[in-house]
């Protein structure tokens, strides 16, 4: 088993029901149609001119991350890393870029956003997150893999703090799929003045399982964020392709 303890110092989620933060759930305004319509002043108190130019996956990642970091004393630093899961990759932006190419005017702005790693760029720039990065674009339980990497890096002192983000963009392939969603947690190995909860991650690899056995990570991590918001102690079991284990939350 691989057991790791971390501390949650900030969190946020953009969900179809609203924005989840330590202050509670704030529903979307009437003119907003869910996470993709998030406004800058709902997640960030100071102006950020680039916000209006962000494509959907970048906007989801930036908004969720910025909201999680909004109450943190010192988010930035050379050893503050980012572990992000983005299973849809940049497919929606790829289609925008392809459309611009087919019209004879390939857009450099769209093209630069067709690399999944550019999704973290604005967060890194705005909050000076200069530590290690890992961008996981799918595979078995990608959001869990990103969280597992965060725990490993903290334990091994590769990073002092990690912003974990997961972006589940509505699929451009299956329009009836779940709505856009993004979740973030700001994690450290030791508790500090910002600490909200302790999180224990415990898992072990399992043997090959059929491809169709998929963990619904969006539901699982929204349960984690919901428990953080409601100050609940909770143990959430994980069983998916490649491993089994649990996440245990204890409020401070």
């Amino acid at each position, binding site marked *: 088993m691989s057991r790791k303890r971390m501390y949650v110092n900030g969190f946020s989620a953009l969900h179809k029901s609203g924005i989840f933060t330590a202050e509670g759930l704030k529903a979307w305004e009437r003119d907003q149609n869910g996470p993709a319509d998030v406004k800058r002043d709902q997640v960030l108190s100071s102006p950020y001119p680039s916000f209006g130019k962000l494509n959907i996956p970048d906007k989801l990642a930036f908004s969720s991350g910025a909201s999680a970091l909004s109450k943190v004393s010192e988010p930035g630093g050379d050893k503050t890393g980012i572990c992000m899961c983005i299973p849809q990759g940049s497919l929606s932006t790829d289609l925008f870029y392809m459309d611009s190419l087919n019209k004879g005017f390939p857009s450099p702005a769209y093209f630069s956003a067709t690399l999944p*790693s550019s999704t973290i760029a604005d967060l890194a720039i705005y909050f000076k997150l200069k530590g290690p990065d890992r*961008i996981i674009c799918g595979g078995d339980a990608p959001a869990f893999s990103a969280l597992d990497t965060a725990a490993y890096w903290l334990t091994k002192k590769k990073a002092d703090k990690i912003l974990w983000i997961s972006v589940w963009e509505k699929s451009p392939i299956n329009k009836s799929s779940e709505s856009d969603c993004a979740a973030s947690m700001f994690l450290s190995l030791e508790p500090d003045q910002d600490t909200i909860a302790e999180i224990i991650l415990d898992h072990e690899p399992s043997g090959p399982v059929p491809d169709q056995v998929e963990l619904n990570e969006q539901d699982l991590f929204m349960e984690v964020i919901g428990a953080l918001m409601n100050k609940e102690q909770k143990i959430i079991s994980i069983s998916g392709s490649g491993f089994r284990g649990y996440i245990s939350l204890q409020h401070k």
Partner: protein
Amino acid sequence: MSKAVVLEQHEILCASGTLKSASKAIIDGKTAVREGPCFDYDVSYAPFPDQTWATLTGAAEELRKITGFNPDIPNLLFVYCAAKGDVSSIENNTDLSGALLHSQARKAAELLGFKPSRIIVVSSACASGAIAVQTAKEMLERGLYTTAAVFGYDVISRFVVSGFYSLNALSAKQARPFDKSRDGLNLGDGAALSIFTYREPRDGDVIVAGAGCSNDANHRTGPSRTGEGLFRAAKAALDDCSGYSPVIGAVKCHGTATVYNDAMEAKALALLFEKIPPCYSLKGAIGHTSGAGSLMEILLASCFMKIGKVPPTAGFQESGVDEPVQVCARGQDFQGNSVLCLSAGFGGVNAAVVLREFKA
């Protein structure tokens, strides 16, 4: 003797062919870059010599055939890395699920005959391959898997060529890394497969001694002007080598031949070393093969270290960076026990891997 992450088997496909033919061509100073047009753009490029490799199916099947490895590996981690991978379904407006990297990963694993216990897909633009090697290293060192297969695939497409062209990043001529007259990169086709295990190394084994990464936190697409981000990634990789005492005999640079990348990289090297070891870039020989390229270049660097050579940098004649970077215009002997491999990518990502030849 303690265990290490050992590179057991590897093979590449690039514009100069397979590992054997490409390493020979590179050592001989040959280039596989050809003049355009490429998709109607006046740019030079480095395509596969056999265009049946230029699909995910073709590349995976060829790699399986020429390596002849037994894919029946228990407790296997499969790491797929690509910047864009296969974008043909986007270009042709067919089944878009084929453009998703995790769909490509499952397809590649199946084509290679693997039944992995777990699949991880990493995409960090042109640093994807190095980050994938780091991912495999971490998972093996933790004892979660006994073997890791890292596969990378990125090919020239209208999508990618037009994008880099729109950013004014491509050269009409052969790329000239670190040269005074450098004016951009050449895109190339690339695919690579490598198998790593965690065991006690034997004489002559190449081990992944260290790996590290960082973010510039500076710009979405452009490199930092200070080199500080790449310096931190390289420093992290060297710090990760504890116990292996690396003596860096060469630096395999990212060396894209764009004005700003090479200037940044020279600054990073000057921050890192009191005396900068011999440096080389492979981009003028086999093109820039994006995310797969970072893996492919690590595997070529291993090969050059094993044969005791620092290859020439095709396209380089006269230094065009301010720092005293000793870019090899001609091949030379490799002095040391390790090679430092550097990569960088969009999003401000930097990655570094240290390979060491093990001597008992």
